[in-house]
């Protein structure tokens, strides 16, 4: 870790977000220079029999939701892969698949192997704080021939952020397959939303603590362009969940692709579109 434990303890509670952001931005630059990657994602529901209509601009097709059975999941994966025209297909939360394995009385690896055999390339997310056995589950993903699109956190009290990030870094030391970590919580409470200071602190601390995961990711659709753009200046280097639907009824400049590029450039960085495999498009 690039800062000492004592420094980390003081940075974790600092209100000087500019100082914290500077340290995190420096680390980000050492690793990625001015490159900021983003991926355009098309979400399709897990529970549906309708063949999906997929936007050709998508760099990742993501199956979202909780399948009721393994058979349902496998058949949906096959259907989506058939429609994906070669675009990488990701799907499901690893925590939900752990639960599915329990319900099906099957090993997690069997579930993962069957999904892989049906054409799934990536597990869409592994919510670290929801996994029963994070190390084992992530290793099983790897052994089954799948990749993990991102490690996430479902919920996060800011007081526990550093401890959780340290646990994430420890997991990565063991498994070494996590390509991207999204440190902001997926579950948002509209009555008491996280604050801007809180989000900035979490992103910056994640860059400092989880320094063995290449990308610190921020979710464009969940957190919105404004916070996502600020996050890029305090340690994040990858933007997830940009809409793949690029029709722009109010003019070209407002299409998602233009908007994400404009925001990255305005943050002083160079936008690079990638696909779900983390390959430039």
């Amino acid at each position, binding site marked *: 870790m690039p800062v000492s434990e004592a420094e980390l303890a003081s940075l974790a509670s600092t*209100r000087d*977000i*500019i100082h914290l*952001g*500077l340290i995190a*931005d420096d680390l980000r630059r050492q690793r990625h220079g001015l490159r900021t990657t983003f991926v355009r994602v098309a979400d399709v529901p897990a529970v549906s029999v309708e063949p999906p209509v997929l936007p050709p601009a998508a760099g990742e097709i993501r199956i979202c939701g909780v399948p009721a059975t393994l058979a349902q999941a496998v058949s949906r994966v096959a259907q989506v892969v058939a429609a994906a025209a070669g675009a990488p297909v990701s799907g499901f939360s690893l925590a939900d698949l752990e639960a599915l394995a329990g319900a099906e009385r099957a090993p997690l690896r069997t579930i993962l192997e069957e999904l892989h055999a049906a054409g799934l390339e990536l597990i869409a997310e592994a919510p670290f704080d929801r996994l029963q056995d994070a190390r084992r589950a992530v290793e099983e993903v790897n052994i089954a021939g799948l990749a993990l699109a991102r490690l996430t956190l479902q919920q996060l009290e800011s007081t526990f952020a550093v401890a959780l990030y340290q646990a994430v870094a420890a997991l990565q030391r063991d498994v070494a397959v996590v390509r991207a970590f999204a440190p902001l919580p997926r579950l948002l409470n*509209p*009555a*008491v*939303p*996280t*604050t*801007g*200071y*809180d*989000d*900035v602190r979490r992103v910056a601390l994640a860059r400092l603590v989880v320094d063995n995961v290449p990308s610190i990711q921020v979710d464009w659709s969940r957190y*919105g*362009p*404004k*916070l996502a*753009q*600020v996050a890029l*200046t305090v340690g994040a280097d990858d933007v997830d969940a940009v809409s793949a639907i690029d029709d722009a009824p*109010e*003019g070209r*400049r*407002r299409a998602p692709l*233009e*908007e994400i590029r*404009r*925001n990255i450039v*305005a*943050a*002083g960085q160079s936008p690079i579109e990638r696909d779900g495999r983390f390959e430039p498009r």
Partner: protein
Amino acid sequence: MTIDRIADKVAAGGRIDAGEALALYRCAPTPTLGRLADAIRARRHPGGIVTYIIDRNVNYTNVCVAKCSFCAFYRPVGSAEGYVLGFDEIFRKIDETIAVGGGQLLLQGGHNPDLPLEWYEDLFRAVKARYPSFRLHALSPPEVIHLSRLTQKPIGEVLDRLIAAGLDSVPGGGAEILVDRVRRALHCYGKATSAEWLDVMRHAHRAGLRTTATMMYGTVETGEERIEHLMRLRALQDETAGFTAFIAWSYQPEHTELAGSEATAVDYLRTLATARIVLDNFESLQASWVTQGGKVGQLSLGYGANDMGSVMLEENVVRAAGAAYCMDEMEIVRNIEDAGFIAKRRNMHYEILGDPIFRDREIPRMLALSTSRTGGGGSSPEELRMYSARSLAGKRDRRQD
């Protein structure tokens, strides 16, 4: 001069010129700008207090002849969606504002040719008669100019009459960018040239009123023009010292004739910090959470802002253009305190009124701002018949043709 030299000059309390300001805005790293602005904020407000006001942003009419190309709020004369609020509706809004601890209306509206100066005078008098200590922060410079043209009376006389009727202070709206090339491009040169806008403020300050100053950026202006705007405000403030605060907000493009895209959050923080550095004679800078959202609104406190603006209860103009953020008093205070500051209520003069109201008594939570008209439909209150209309449609409506 290099960025470092300019930064040193700012850090030492020196005043920068337009060229230096432009160099900082264009080239200084965002954290450098933030640091410089934050140090100025801390010097001016050493107690770590961040203020806010409880008031209500009421738009008395959406009928407007100015037709600015960046505006999604106005309706043309005769439009079925045009409205004028009745006095009783405005009283009801004041009652609701007082109920949550507010003491002021920010009252602005379109340039409606069918509302004569007497309507405003009667409204202000009626408000003051019913609510003697309630404040009217009302009529931005272009509205005053509109009334001056309508009555063919000089600005000073119009302002004097409005003050006599109860006007307490003037909001800084309608400034957009105080450069006439930009104003022509935005179709707002006609409503007020740069010099006319500044002149209304000069008159107001000389008449003893305090006013705010604003900037709507992110349309067609260049970086130079953004800086020129700030320089003009700084020059008038040197002359009159009448501005209480500066508020910058980004152009909101939805449903406007101009369309285009909104400036980004980082641009907002850079613009705010640059303004804090340039406007060395302004006491306060507001965060525009209404256009930036609560998160970037809060981050503004690290980039030079010392005020979280208004718990505005109601908002119509930027909402019409696509921004629909809401923060009630509890949320504003939570954000101020989370950033490490002390939250205090203030009035329009930035005098501290006290601690958050919700800590004293129960205030209903507010998860969305109200609008002037929840149904959105047009209307013309009965009492308007007492006032002469200018437009054909207005005359017909009031049966004055």
